[in-house]
Every structure is written in C-alpha cells, then in structure tokens.
C-alpha cells in the first residue's frame, strides 16, 4: 500500500519499537540499581574500612588482585556474599584451600562489604533470591539427583572429587547460599545458570536440601549417608563382632 496511511503505520510501528526498547533497557538497568543500604555513606565507609583491613592485602585496594588473591573485578555480589557468609573468606593463609567455617563478620558487616566491593567492582552476578517455601520437593529431588549428587553425594553429605577438593556437605547451607553456589560455581564447582536450573528449580532444590537435613532416614541411624562403605563396616564390626563375642562367651577356648 502507498500513501499517507502507510506513512502513519510506519511511524506508529517505529514509536512502538523505540518504546519497547526503552522499556526493556530500562528494566535491565533498573535491575542493576544499587541496594538501598549502599545509598548511606556511613555504610559504605564501614564496608571500605572492613575491606581495607581484611581483604586488601590479598585482593588489592582496588580489587584488582595480587599474587596472593584473585581480582574481584568480575566477581559480583553473589560471589562476595557467598565467600563471606560461609566463612571461606577472609583466608588466614593464602596458600590454604577455602573451607566452610564460622563467618568472620556479622551479617550487617557482610552487607557493607558486599556493597563496598560492588561499588569498586561493579558487575557480576547479583545475590539470587531463593524462596524454599515456593519449592516443590519432588522437583528439587530431581534437580539434585540430576546435577548435584555426582559430586555432593546422593544424601548431600559430601564426597571427594579429586583436584585436592572435597565437595562439601550441604546441610549447613541456607537457601541464599545454595543459590549463590549454584549460580557462581565456587572452587571447582561448575556454574548452573537459569538455562540449566531456572528459578523454580532453584527454589525446589533449596527446599529439598533443607528437607534432607532432618528427613529421609526412616530406616534408623544414617551412618553419615556414606552408603555401602559404612554399611559394610557396621556389618563386620557390629554385626559379626557382637556374634563373635557371643561365641567367645559360650564356646570353649581350648
């Protein structure tokens, strides 16, 4: 078609396209807005002080890294929060493997540090929101068995994976920490983005892991969920052991 009707249609379509683009870009930009707490200057100052006192020796003042510690420029809030919340960081000795332990900072201090690092090293994955109450146990079990059980053990009690590391037990992780680990892949762990574990699956995974802490052991003592190795040990030492004791008590010794 030709003429004024055509020109009008084209203008309308152009306005729509531009509007849509602005809306989408705006959404994306909006999602990267800094958290409300970071707006307070005292908060950032605290974060900065903590960073300089505890982190800068290995990660450098500008988070650019040193031979003792990697650059944090691409880490993102999720990674920083994960490391601090699980007590893996700060590391007393740079040669040590990071291991789960008591967090060295209070939650408020951790928030301050996360905010500060984000301000000097923006970008990277944000802290995921994980709501275990929205999760479905059956979906969570499925996701766990398909993706996690090979390294962390079928009962989530952890296992050696080689490369000098042990995939840890997952009983102490809260849903946010679970989400962070899944998305950032700390240590030797691979990452699982929304393409492999989407939000519903992540919520369900968290729900299942929380459930596993106190459930799943209808059969009795769970022997660290170490499987046939522990069962064999008990069968020989306890089962056969008690019976041999009975034999010794009732049979002749000569």
């Amino acid at each position, binding site marked *: 078609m030709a003429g004024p009707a055509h020109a009008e249609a084209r203008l309308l379509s152009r306005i729509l396209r531009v509007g849509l683009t602005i809306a989408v870009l705006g959404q994306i930009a909006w999602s990267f807005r800094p958290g409300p707490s970071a707006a307070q200057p005292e908060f950032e100052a605290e974060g900065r002080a903590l960073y300089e006192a505890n982190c800068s020796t290995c990660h450098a003042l500008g988070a650019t890294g040193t031979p003792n510690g990697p650059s944090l420029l691409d880490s993102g809030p999720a990674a920083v929060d994960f490391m601090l919340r699980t007590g893996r960081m700060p590391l007393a000795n740079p040669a040590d493997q990071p291991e789960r332990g008591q967090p060295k900072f209070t939650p408020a201090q951790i928030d301050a540090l996360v905010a500060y690092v984000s301000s000097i090293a923006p970008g990277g994955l944000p802290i995921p929101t994980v709501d275990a109450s929205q999760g479905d146990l059956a979906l969570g079990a499925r996701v766990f068995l398909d993706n996690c059980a090979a390294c962390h053990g079928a009962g989530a009690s952890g296992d050696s994976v080689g490369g000098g590391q042990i995939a840890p037990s997952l009983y102490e992780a809260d849903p946010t920490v679970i989400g962070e680990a899944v998305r950032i892949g700390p240590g030797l762990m691979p990452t699982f*983005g929304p393409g492999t574990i989407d939000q519903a699956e992540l919520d369900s995974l968290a729900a299942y892991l929380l459930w596993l802490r106190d459930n799943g052991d209808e059969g009795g003592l769970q022997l660290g969920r170490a499987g046939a190795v522990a069962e064999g040990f008990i069968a020989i030492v306890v089962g056969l052991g008690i019976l041999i004791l009975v034999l010794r008590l009732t049979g002749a010794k000569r």
Partner: protein
Amino acid sequence: MKRSERLVALAFVVAIISALALFAVYVRGGNPQAEGALLALALGGVGAGLLLWATRLMPQIRDETQPRTQATPATDADREAAAETVEAGVEEIRRRRFLARLLLGAAGALGLAALIPIRSLGRSPGDSLLRTKWTAGARLVTADGTPVTTSTLEVGSFVTVFPEGFEGSADSQAVLVSVEPGLLHLPPEWSDGAPPGLVAYSKLCTHAGCPVGLYLAATHELRCPCHQSTFDVLNGARPVYGPAPRPLPQLPIEVGDDDVLRATGEFTGPVGPSFWELA
C-alpha cells in the same frame, strides 16, 4: 545354680515382654526402630536364655569321646568288591562298543542342541555397540525434551543432552560443556565439530560405562564417580587420570539457524567400554 536359673528366667521374661510390646507397636501403626529394637530384645531374650541354660544349667552333661568312624572300617576286600560291582555295570555298556559309541554321539548331539535355548536368551550384538541414536541434523535436547541453544549454558556450565526424540537414551547420552572460547585444543579433524566455547562428548565412561557426571569446571575436567577416570575437556576428553583407556568420543555439533544446537553426525568413535570387536 540359683543365680543362673534366675538369669535364664529373666532372659525369657524380657523376651515375652518385648514380643508383646512388639504387638502393641504394630497395632498402633508400627515404627521401624521400635520394631527392630523389640524384635532384637525378644529374639535375644530367647537366645540368651537358651545359651545360658545350655552352658550353665547342664553341668552334669560332660564332654564325651567317641571314635570318628562308626561302622567297622572297610577292608581291602570290601573295597575290591565295591569296585567290582561298579565295574560290572560299566562293562555291560563297554561290551557293546558300537552301540556305546552311538550313545556318546547322541549325547553329544543332544548336548549341543541343549545350547539352543541359550541362544534364544538375547539378540545378536551385531553392530549395535557401534551405533547410537545420533544422526546428522538431530537437535540436542535435555532430558525433559527442551532444545539446547547457545544461551542455555554459560561459561563453566555443563548439561546432559540427547538427540531429540530419544531423551534418556542409554547409549546416546552426551554431555555439553561450555568453556572460555579459544581454550579448546581439539584434534584437527574434529575441531569443526565444536562451535566456539562449546563442545560435546559422550557421557559414557570408556572404562566401565558409568555416566561421567562430575565436572570440575576450574580445571576443565570431566570425572567419573565409579573409578575416578578423569577426562580433559579442552583436549578431546583424553583421559588424564584413572583407569579409562580411551578418550570420550566427541559429538560433532553445530549451531542451527534457530540457534538450537544440532549434531552433524555420529560420535567420533564407539561409546562406552571396550569390547573385542572394537578395532
């Protein structure tokens, strides 16, 4: 004596009470731990009582000594007679040489025929161990059938994939890994089969066939949980540790027009553990 009697009595009483309690637990819905504990007490009570009775309440029953062989031992004459009896029967058959040979032949032939049901137990392997369900153009999908695109994975991620329509297939299972572009050092003849930063290998371990389900992302190694065979993803999944003798065969893939990943053909080698017919 008195004390032992009381112990035996106590053991039996414990058994009775536990067995009755077991009934109560059962009627009220049952509980494995209670059931096991009470069963142990009930059975153990009877057992302990019997053992105490036998070892402490029968002192008058002493050990006795007996000869080991009861009947009078066989003399040479007896053995001779036995051998002759057997021999006589065998000789009857041996006498008729021709018929005995035919009997042997019949037994042999029937014996061979008896192997027939064994052949019926399964189909011939044929070349099924050398083929999977992958064909050129087959789309890669996850276990639930979702097509895999270039945005499914990020760097450091991996996922189990199948040819579309054969989700869950045992021999076609493959693992798609996303690595930093430029790090892959595949054999020249197969480097076309991996879009930048993406490579797919068979998930069946070449050692004993377990799915290679661990991915150590930082060192780009796929590892098998069964016997710890470790494969270097950047170098054609060649084995770098453990008992696996061959690399994981690569699945050559390309990015289709719709951004969905497709196979361009079969795996670069037979999947799974080795067998005689493998060249």
